[in-house]
């Protein structure tokens, strides 16, 4: 199966990050990347650098909380966790996503 790069993921990055943080609690950027790739069985491959502007933007929007902490290897790492506002945003975006995919699926099967 070929991997999908950012182009096709545009607009869904926020959704994926919010979902991962909602299920796994506090994570650093690398952990989020790792988890998304692992769960999608490497089909969704992020351009990893582009994750960070998104994380900063969402932190400013109040969806994520960012703080420095010690990593597994005891290095200083920036950790993100989801806020109540972030969970609300996640619910909205997840609903939009499923509406969109259902609509596309209907067109593909019925048109």
């Amino acid at each position, binding site marked *: 199966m070929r991997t999908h790069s950012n182009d096709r993921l545009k607009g869904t990055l926020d959704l994926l990050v919010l979902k991962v943080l909602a299920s796994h609690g506090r994570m*650093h*950027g*690398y952990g989020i*990347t*790792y988890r998304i790739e692992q769960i999608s069985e490497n089909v969704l*491959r992020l*351009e*990893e*650098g*582009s994750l*960070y*502007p998104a*994380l*900063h*933007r969402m*932190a*400013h*929007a*109040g969806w994520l909380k960012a703080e420095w902490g010690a*990593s597994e*290897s005891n*290095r*200083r*790492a*920036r950790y993100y966790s989801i806020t109540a506002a972030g969970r609300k945003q996640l619910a909205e975006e997840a609903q939009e996503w499923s509406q969109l995919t259902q609509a596309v699926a209907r067109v593909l099967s019925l048109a």
Partner: protein
Amino acid sequence: MSLLERISNLLRRDRIDNELQEELQFHLDARMRDNLSAGMNAQAAQQDTRIRFGNATLAKERAHEANIVVFIETIGRDLRYAFRQYCKAPGFTFTAILVLALGMAASVSIFAFVNAALLRPLPFQDPSRLAAVFEDTPSCPQCGISYPDYQDWKSSKQVFRSLEIWEDNAYLWRSPAGAVALRGGRVSGGFFQTLGVTPALGRPLQSSRRHA
């Protein structure tokens, strides 16, 4: 993120840059470590890390833009929010404005006084060489002096080039409409010359016209 934190972020770009750099470096190092432990050789691990990460400079710039754009947007939002809160609590707003106004008025008047009394020089010729002289006794600190004492002090001429006296008093003036209380003063003959000013009305006194 608090307003204070946002302002300090804006002002200390180098600190943000360092933190962002550290955050990105952590990611690169973690990817490198995982690549090596997956059995890649050093060169392949490095190349894979770079390709996966994409344009690091662009990522940094974008992250920075996110910080600044959000700051500008939220300042406007914070101001509107503050305004709405004030409208909701007119009593509090009125009190706050009143306290601020009184505070400013008090500061301005105190400054006006200090400026006139202490900062601005006296409106006389050579104000730095003017001094007020008093007689000081235990029963009467900073007392006025008697006329004979004045004459003695003036004739000694050891300290001051000239020494003049003045007195502040209230007078009754018999006006066509009846007696009117006036505040006035008496000064010695060289008073105006010593201060280096001329009276607003009339002629300056001449020392020769002084009567003992």
